[in-house]
């Protein structure tokens, strides 16, 4: 189908702005997907009106076939921002896309009235309008997904930060109790947090306790070794504690040599070793 001039749509949008807005808002409010709990009617009306104005402007100036052009930037920006705020408010993709798709009905009705009895003209106009709105709808969904992914990525990072607490056990002794599976990304953050903690607290000894780590593969073992080496370059010593019997067996089978790294069976053993290094002794008070 050849490109149909879309002048009519922008004319209609201008001429019937008020009516279309009313119908469109009504359409959106009646849609079962509208989240009344998250969005007020006033906000919806404001957003809808703003979009109609931007759309009209873009249609007057730009090519409706190519939404990537500069004339469409305001429309794209508006939809990106809308999708983003919807995504952050936990709207679903279809709830978000309904914003665009529910404009079809009111617009088609006006197009019908405007083209009169000319069926071909109506078909052409409806085709143009539906193509345009589909494109805008898809753009909205894509922006939505992108925003969602950003949220997920950020949450993953936050989770990583939370799951690697560096705690101070004693003046000069840090501990990092690790719980759960260690993958490459997490290990990198663990490493950076621990080393930064060493600098911040000027601690010469750090204990990495892996009691809560279900399995250690070659890669994780290598990451642990690198952390030990990096700490040594900074002037601190890392002790690894909580290596369970199965993990010790796996490591030997994998041929992972912990080299001259100090390893202890439990966190308590590691701490008492650290005290010995620092020449700290305790005596029980006799009464």
């Amino acid at each position, binding site marked *: 189908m050849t490109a149909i001039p879309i002048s009519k749509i922008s004319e209609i949008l201008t001429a019937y702005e008020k009516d279309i807005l009313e119908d469109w808002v009504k359409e959106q409010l009646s849609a079962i997907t509208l989240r009344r709990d998250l969005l007020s009617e006033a906000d919806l009306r404001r957003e809808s009106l703003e979009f109609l104005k931007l759309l009209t402007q873009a249609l007057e100036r730009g090519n409706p076939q190519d939404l990537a052009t500069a004339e469409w930037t305001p429309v794209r920006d508006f939809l990106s921002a809308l999708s983003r705020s919807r995504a952050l408010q936990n709207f679903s993709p279809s709830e978000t896309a309904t914003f665009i798709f529910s404009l079809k009905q009111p617009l088609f009705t006006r197009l019908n009235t405007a083209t009169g009895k000319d069926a071909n003209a109506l078909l052409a106009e409806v085709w143009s309008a539906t193509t345009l709105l589909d494109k805008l709808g898809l753009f909205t969904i894509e922006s939505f997904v992108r925003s969602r992914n*950003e949220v997920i*990525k950020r949450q993953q*990072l936050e989770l990583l930060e939370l799951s690697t607490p560096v705690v101070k056990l004693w003046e000069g002794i840090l501990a990092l109790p690790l719980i759960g599976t260690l993958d490459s*990304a997490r290990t990198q953050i663990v490493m950076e947090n621990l080393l930064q903690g060493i600098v911040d607290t000027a601690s010469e000894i750090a204990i990495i306790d892996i009691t809560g780590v279900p399995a250690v593969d070659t890669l994780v073992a290598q990451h642990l070794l690198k952390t030990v080496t990096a700490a040594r370059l900074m002037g601190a010593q890392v002790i690894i504690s909580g290596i369970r019997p199965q993990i010790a067996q796996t490591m030997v089978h994998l041929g992972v040599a912990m080299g001259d790294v100090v390893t202890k069976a439990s966190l308590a053993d590691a701490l008492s070793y650290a005290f010995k290094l620092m020449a700290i002794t305790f005596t029980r008070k006799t009464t």
Partner: protein
Amino acid sequence: MNPTRSETFQLQTSDDVIRMRQMVRVWMVEMKFGLVDQTKMVTAASELARNALAYGGGGSVCMEALADDGRRGLRLVFEDQGPGIADLELALTDGYTTGGGLGLGLSGSKRLVNEFAIWSAVGEGTRVTIVRWTI
């Protein structure tokens, strides 16, 4: 992938290496790379620039900012018209050196980046491309 920004610098003296390191740092800060990412990339760049100087008799580096599906990347292409490398596999081995260094320039910088590619022809020169991506 088309770079969103690109610039080329000459590498003729060790001062050029320092200037290039500073440029790489500035770009990475602007592109919001983390400190460890910055340090790894700047170090890799320093190794490769020194190689271009020591073995290639000087060369150039082209810096390109990339964007792909929400992540950002920095690509550096080091080129020299030096004697080239006859045995790439050997040159990529830890500890192998013909210049009296530690032999970590190529193999080490490969470990510091996400993507590494090397092309070399004897008598024509060497081109090393590295990329580091944000998460």
